[in-house]
């Protein structure tokens, strides 16, 4: 009899535990009807800098829609667009963007903004590239000195640009494992690696500025203190926006996507983009560059 009672007490505990665990399920199913959603895949550089968090609420308010932002590497952002899992992409790898359009996943790419890449490295600068005006030339010096170089190695926009720079000087560093490390990591982790190891790396200026406080071993060696001092046109880093083609993926929110494209290229938002980061870094992190903006500010 005692055994029986214990059994029942145990079963009761089991049941109450089960109900407790199922309770959240009820809460989830009972949440009110979903509002309209626009899904944007973008790169970590635009999101982690805080830019999108600052401008997004205005879009949500104006168009009465939830803007869901997924911040990933450019390679992954483009893959999400190709699969139709997002409605619009904001990325920075021109060659990938053009391929995206060519393959029919989007019908039009619009300029949004730009910033620039810089070469950073250890203060001792073993390859002697400080003050060089041309990034490819500087990379040639790094390769010649066999000084350590850290590569993103993750198919990101920055990695794509780095590969183009190596190609321009006819060097394939991926085989030279001694001094070249392809990390397959984000910009922050790559800068951290370069800081710890005293390695060179290619970075977008915004991320370097944001993380600079923790990177005492690194300094900007090519690209100058601001974009105005950057003499190498190959270090320019343009961002483009593309709405996913509803003909390929009928499920995408193409109307909102088109509205987002016109909104982010509009004069008002372009001006906001140009001011972002001024108070924190003394220089903007992104420069407005939409067609509308260029026409209004020739």
């Amino acid at each position, binding site marked *: 009899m005692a055994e029986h009672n214990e059994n029942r007490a145990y079963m009761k505990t089991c049941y109450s535990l089960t109900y407790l665990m*199922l309770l959240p*399920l009820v809460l989830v199913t009972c949440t009110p009807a979903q509002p309209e959603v626009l899904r944007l895949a973008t790169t970590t550089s635009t999101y982690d800098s805080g830019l999108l968090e600052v401008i997004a609420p205005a879009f949500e308010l104006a168009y009465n829609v939830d803007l*869901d932002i997924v911040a990933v590497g450019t390679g992954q952002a483009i893959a999400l667009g190709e699969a139709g899992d997002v409605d619009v992409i904001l990325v920075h790898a021109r060659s990938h963007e053009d391929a995206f359009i060519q393959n029919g996943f989007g019908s039009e790419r619009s300029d949004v903004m730009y910033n620039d890449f810089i070469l950073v490295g250890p203060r001792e600068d073993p390859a002697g590239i400080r003050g060089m005006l041309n990034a490819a030339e500087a990379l040639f010096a790094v390769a010649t000195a066999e000084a350590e170089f850290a590569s993103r190695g993750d198919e990101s926009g920055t990695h794509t640009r780095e590969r183009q720079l190596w190609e321009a000087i006819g060097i394939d560093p991926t085989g030279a494992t001694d001094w070249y490390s392809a990390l397959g990591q*984000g910009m922050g982790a790559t800068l951290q690696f370069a800081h710890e190891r005293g390695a060179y790396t290619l970075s977008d200026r915004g991320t370097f500025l944001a993380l600079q406080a923790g990177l005492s071993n690194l300094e900007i060696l090519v690209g100058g203190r601001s974009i105005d001092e950057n003499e190498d046109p190959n270090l320019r880093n343009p961002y483009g926006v593309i709405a996913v083609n509803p003909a390929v993926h009928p499920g995408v929110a193409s109307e909102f996507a088109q509205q987002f494209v016109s909104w982010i290229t509009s004069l008002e938002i372009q001006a906001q983009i140009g001011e972002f980061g001024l108070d924190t870094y003394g220089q903007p992190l992104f420069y407005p560059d939409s067609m509308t903006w260029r026409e209004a500010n020739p």
Partner: protein
Amino acid sequence: MTPLTEIVLLTLKVSGIALGLATIVGVPLGALLGLSQFRGRSFIVGLVYTGMGLPPVVVGLAVYMTLSRSGPLGDLSMLFTPAAMIAAQVVIALPLIAGISMAAVDGLDQAIRLQLRSLGTSPTQELFSMLLEARLGVLAGIVAGFGGIISEVGAAILVGGNIQGKTRILSTAIVLETRRGNFGLGLALGGVLLSLAFVVNFLLMRLEARWRWRRR
């Protein structure tokens, strides 16, 4: 609601539901495996144990490709929702719970089973009674499953998207703050995550203590 409370509540909700579902399926499954003899059992057991070491990011990738609009279940529009994160966490926790429950039931004295049978119990009654005997081990399995998913980040960020106010949980928020260079904030969020895990484990251990006492 502050963003932090929102994140903590979502973390508990996602992992709580996932743990509940994985427990409901995993415990009986593990017990059944532990009690039965059939051809190919060692193969299945090997699969379950291998599943315990499944890299979460691989689970995330598989769930992503299943739920993607271009995938087989794309019409459900589940990608980048808490439901997708729950699905991934169930897959991660299930082998842990089933595997440890199986081992717990398997480790019981076979004399108990013979005794139960001699009392004329039905197979279902036998299963429940054996589970009752092995409850401490089963609880350990649930605790292991919880530990595996509450701190998991690879799958959660892939299928959830780390969307502010919607799919951002503690582990993915830590990744974001680390990427942003806010190491201090990241570490503080890590402290919150650990405290949360401790509170849950403490409650489960209270339960264990009660069960242990009752057995004597």
